[in-house]
Structure formats: structure tokens, C-alpha cells
């Protein structure tokens, strides 16, 4: 059973639809017990960083999310990936979950079209179980204006958008983060979600 954390900031139904399509059992939940009992956890999210962190905290889920991320396969998607880091500078400096060291900063370069919106090609970094078998020429769907700044040792995949943009981060243990939307990335995205489901023992 995969718990999809429902804290009021995300396109949770798309993630649920994709898992249903893959016949991976999942539940939308804002209940700490259900998150504890799940075999794996997905933290989705769209919108602004501070408001998402606030909503997570108001739902009383910050602690359980931090704890369970270390206990079982845990995947943050889009803003949910950005929330894995120590802090963000979206609107104001704001603490994240601190599960992977790094920060989230505005993507800025003269003339660069923002948001980074569309399909970009994955380039691979450190070995990451949920990217196994994804192969070359793998395009996935992005839409974001802020990006993670983190150490290469956490960088499982990146894309080129006026420089390296972290696409998939991995702590080497249980914590995964996808800046792109696997649930909106066609067959490649579905394969990544299937791999994630396959981590469940």
C-alpha cells in the first residue's frame, strides 16, 4: 500500500490515477497512522513552497513524514521533491523537511523562459534504483520556476536548461525526489512509478 500524502497542496488525483492504472494499491490520506502503516509514501505538491510547508504542518504531518521517509521508500514529486531539502527561497526563506541537504532557489538567467515547462531529456548521475531500465532518450515532463541546488552525490538525473537542473535526487537509501511529474510523463513516467512500487518488499 502506497500512501499519497493529501495535505491540500497537490494534484493528488493524477498521482492516484497513475498508480491505479499500474494496479499499484494506494490511498490518499492525511492520517498519520495510515502513513505509518503504508509500505511506501508519495509526497506530491504544486504551488508555493511556504504555503505547502504550512499546510503540511497544519495537517500535523510534518513529523510523521520526516520519520517515515527514513523507514520506507519515499518519493517527493515536483514541489514535494523541493520540500525534501533544507530550505527554500521562494518568496521568503523557509525551512524544508531537511531530508536531503541543499536548497531551492529561483531559476534566473537573462532571457530564460520561466517556468521551465515541457519535456526535457534525462542525463544520469548517481545510481538510482527507480531509474533502472529507463534508458537513453528518456523525456519527462517538467513545470517549475524554482530548482534544487544540491551536491552531485544526490543527483541521480539532471536535465539541461541553461545549465544543469536537478531532475531526480536520491539520498542513497529510501528518499527519492522527482522535480518532473512522473504521473504526467507518459510511458517513461509510468515506468518510474512502477519501479518505485517495486521497491516495496
Amino acid at each position, binding site marked *: 500500500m502506497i500512501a499519497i500524502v493529501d495535505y491540500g497542496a497537490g*494534484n493528488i*488525483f*493524477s498521482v492516484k*490515477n*497513475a498508480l*491505479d*492504472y499500474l494496479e499499484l494499491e494506494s490511498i490518499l490520506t492525511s492520517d498519520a497512522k495510515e502513513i505509518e502503516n503504508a509500505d511506501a509514501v508519495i509526497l506530491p505538491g*504544486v*504551488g*508555493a513552497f511556504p504555503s505547502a510547508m504550512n499546510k503540511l504542518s497544519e495537517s500535523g504531518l510534518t513529523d510523521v513524514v520526516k520519520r517515515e521517509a527514513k523507514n520506507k521508500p519515499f518519493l517527493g514529486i515536483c514541489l514535494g521533491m523541493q520540500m525534501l531539502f533544507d530550505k527554500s527561497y521562494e518568496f521568503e526563506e523557509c525551512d524544508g523537511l531537511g531530508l536531503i541537504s541543499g536548497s531551492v532557489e529561483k531559476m534566473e538567467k537573462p*532571457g*530564460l*523562459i*520561466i*517556468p*521551465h*515547462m*515541457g*519535456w*526535457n*531529456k534525462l542525463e544520469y548521475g548517481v545510481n538510482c534504483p527507480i531509474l533502472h531500465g529507463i534508458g537513453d*532518450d528518456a*523525456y519527462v*515532463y517538467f*513545470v*517549475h*520556476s524554482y530548482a534544487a541546488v544540491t551536491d552531485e552525490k544526490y543527483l541521480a538525473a539532471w*536535465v*539541461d*536548461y541553461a545549465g544543469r537542473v536537478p531532475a531526480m535526487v536520491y539520498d542513497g537509501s529510501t528518499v527519492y525526489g522527482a522535480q518532473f*511529474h512522473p*504521473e*504526467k*510523463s*507518459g*510511458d517513461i*513516467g*509510468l515506468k518510474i512509478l512502477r519501479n518505485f512500487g517495486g521497491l516495496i518488499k
Partner: protein
Amino acid sequence: MLAKRIIPCLDVRDGKVVKGVKFEGVRDVGDPVELAEIYNRQGADEIVFYDITASYEKRGVMLDVVRETAKRVFVPLTVGGGIKTVEDIRDTLRAGADKVSVNSQAVKNPSLIKEGADIFGSQCICVGIDAKKIADNKWTVYINGGRVDMQIDLIDWVKRIEQLGAGEICLNSIDADGTKEGFDLPMLKSVCNAVNIPVIASGGAGKIKDFSEVFEKTGATAALAASLFHFGELTVGEVKEHCRSNGIAMRVK
């Protein structure tokens, strides 16, 4: 490298697919969910449903279409047409759309762009624009399906909507729409120079070369077409293969 996007658009009335030629002469064709699946298989990078349902009461039918499609098609879905309020945006996103495209209502009530972006994020607010040339390098914005000239300068308008928090612009040329003579390159160039948000080219695609040309000659990040794909004159796959062979980055499915 970010790929350029090819986006088929399905015009939907009362839950059925139709196609207007220059906004007139509608002809019923088929099931939008099935067509979205076909486009998905062809490699569509996004799918747009444009709701031309006249009566507000029947808008629920469009949401059912989105709900069903979102269970079977895992690429971004955009819904445009008839979106008037923050509640409409919320309902559409909750049904499974990733973005909404607001057009006439954004012109009548620009605060809808800001409210939508503040609540749901810029990434899901696309502003659709119908514009028509009035002089060299000068265009004005139209509403109500290209029928009413609002006498707003296009370049002023795109700058304003970027400031209000729109995440994307879908720019339709009334002059090019339905002509099949290619996208409106001067209009697209001017708009792409004026803003730093993604611009989708719409209106005028008739030949396969129109797609490579719009990417080679303008800053558009995506190209949209309806009838061309709808009547099977070209497939999304053929267009992408052509663009790729011309050195334009395209997603490999």
C-alpha cells in the same frame, strides 16, 4: 535540452468532439476520450480540450470527459473555454486537468489570472488570446471566439498577463486561423520578444513544414493544431518526426 511541444486540440461540445472552421460550421465527430488516447499514442506532448458548450448547465459533461481521460492518458491535459471563475478553475483542476486556459474572461476580468495563479500556481494558468492585425506589427485582442474587438494592444496585453502571474500564453491568430497557410510568424515573434513565459503558437498550420518553420523562426515553445490532426491530414507522430529531422528537439515517445 527542452523539447518543443506538439499539442493537438480537441473542440468539445456537450461532451462530443467537433471542429469549427474559422469559428463557424461545427460538425460532430466523436468521443473525446478515445481521440485523446489516439493522440497520446501518436506522441502528443499535451492535449487540449476546448469546451464550446454553450449552456453553463452542461459544463459538467466536460468535467466527466476530463475525469475519464485523466485515468487513461498520462500527459498534461489543458481545458479551455467557458472558464469564468476561480471555482471553475478549481473544478476543472480537480477533475484531472493540469492547466486551464482562460480567454475572454481574462480580458473582461484580468484579476482572474492573478487570483488563479495565487491560489493554484502560475503553472496551471494559461491565457488564451485571439488577436488580429490592424497595422504592420500591430494587433488587437478579440474576445468571444474572435467576434468582439476589445481594442487592447496585443503587446500591452501579453506583458500585463505575464505580470499578473500567467504561466503560459496560447496565442491564436485570427488572420491565420483556418487558412492553412502557416502560423502567424510576425505576431509570434513580437509576443515572444515581449515576454519570458512560454508561448504556444496556434492558428494556421496546414503543412508539415509550418511546424518546423514556427520553431526555427520564432521563440514559440509549442505548436497547437486542431483540424489538421482531427481530419487525419497529418499525425502528431509525422509532425514530430519531421521537426526532429530538421534538428528541432522533440520528445521521443
